[in-house]
């Protein structure tokens, strides 16, 4: 039984992304951020004293889970039908809407992915394999105008250098990015019109549904007691958004 194994072992391995505020790494190397903090708390209540977080790129998370290299992913990996088919999600934890980072004053007036599709000369940056890439493609932005950017900082830099016209990430990610850059020539447009609000959950290997179910039980208690809100709201996430929806709804949402 997986849960027993983890208890014995004393820690669970989780994959996180290098994306504030979902995760953050302090200068002393300590991992925090909304995702890992919730996971740490829930696992503690399950009798697993510690989590061992490894930072992954988005593309590597699901393979890591499938290859059994990590026990869970808590990284802002939003629930979508294909993903729900590939992994076992817990109930929702962190919710965020999509946003666009654009030059100040939003000169091209982008408010939705369809706007970007309509402008033949516009190029958009998005992380490879992320939700934004998929939404943009679905909205009709051709493949060669969706630039796959390796990381948020590179996306910001490309926008500053004028290599792309717009960079899309979840609202809180962009806010954090913009704040750190201190660049007053840019602004965040949020939320993107016609784009659903997404929530992530802790993702488990599909063989580990028992562990997932145990996780859900403790997560529900945490939400009820209000401690959940206390953990995530300082990072800017809304507890209400996560509590008011559930996995089945989100997994059905295209």
């Amino acid at each position: 039984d997986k849960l027993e194994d983890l208890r014995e072992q004393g820690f669970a391995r989780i994959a996180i992304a290098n994306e504030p505020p979902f995760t953050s790494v302090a200068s002393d190397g300590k991992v925090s951020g909304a995702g890992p903090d919730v996971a740490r708390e829930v696992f503690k209540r399950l009798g697993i004293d510690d989590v061992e977080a490894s930072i992954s790129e988005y593309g590597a998370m699901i393979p890591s889970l499938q290859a059994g290299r990590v026990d869970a992913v808590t990284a802002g990996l939003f629930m979508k039908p294909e993903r729900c088919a590939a992994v076992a999600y817990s109930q929702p934890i962190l919710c965020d809407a999509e946003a666009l980072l654009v030059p100040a004053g939003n000169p091209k007036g982008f408010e939705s992915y369809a706007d970007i599709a309509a402008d033949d000369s516009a190029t958009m940056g998005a992380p490879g394999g992320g939700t934004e890439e998929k939404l943009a493609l679905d909205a009709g932005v051709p493949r060669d105008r969706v630039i796959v950017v390796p990381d948020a900082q590179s996306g910001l830099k490309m926008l500053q250098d004028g290599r792309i016209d717009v960079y899309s990430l979840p609202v809180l990610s962009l806010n954090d990015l913009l704040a750190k850059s201190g660049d007053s020539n840019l602004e965040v447009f949020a939320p993107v019109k016609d784009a659903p609000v997404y929530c992530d959950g802790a993702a488990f290997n599909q063989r580990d549904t028992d562990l997932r179910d145990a996780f859900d039980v403790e997560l529900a208690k945490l939400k009820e007691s209000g401690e959940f809100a206390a953990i995530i709201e300082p990072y800017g996430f809304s507890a209400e958004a996560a509590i008011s929806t559930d996995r089945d709804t989100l997994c059905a949402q295209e």
Partner: protein
Amino acid sequence: MGDWAGYLTLILQGAWVTVKLTVMGCALALVVALIAGLGRVSHVAVLRWISTCYIEFFRGTSIFVQLFWIYFVLPMTGLWSPTPMQAGVMALGLNVGAYGAEVVRGAILAVPKDQYEACTAVNLTRYQKMRHIILPQALPLMLPTFGNNAIELLKATAVVSLISLSDMTFQAQIVRSQTGNTIFPFVTILILYFIMSLLISTGMRYLERRATRGLDGVR
């Protein structure tokens, strides 16, 4: 933007991972190179065959693909599930080892035919010939290229950041996204890589001098 000393420590932690990867990868590469290189010149056809396949396969595909297979595909077969460090060392060692094997083979073949014949004339066995005559002379020929291969391996460690191993390049990426500063982490690691490669080439030159001592004027 913060605490540079702390972030520098993060990068140095990554540098330590890079050093470990390089040292262990080189050790593995050396062993594999010797085995496969000797296999290539073996008189047993099967050994030659196996070595050739190994060498052509690992030189033929890109290290990214090898890393991916070892780290993600191998565990799915249920055989073995390496840690990132193990996967990194394995991919680097096997990849560079394949190049090294060709160096070993080249050096063995570069020992003049005369020396092989002199061994036959004094009736040494195949093993004695390799052990006492050929390898000691081939080694100095291999060292310079081995030095280059070690530097190649050091540089290749940067790709393990793709499998989330927190090496120096990966740590630089983290510092970059946590601080929003690009120049500081990248300049730092450029300098660190350069220092490491200088250490390797200096060390190799020292070894070369030692190995060729007394052989001056021979070639």
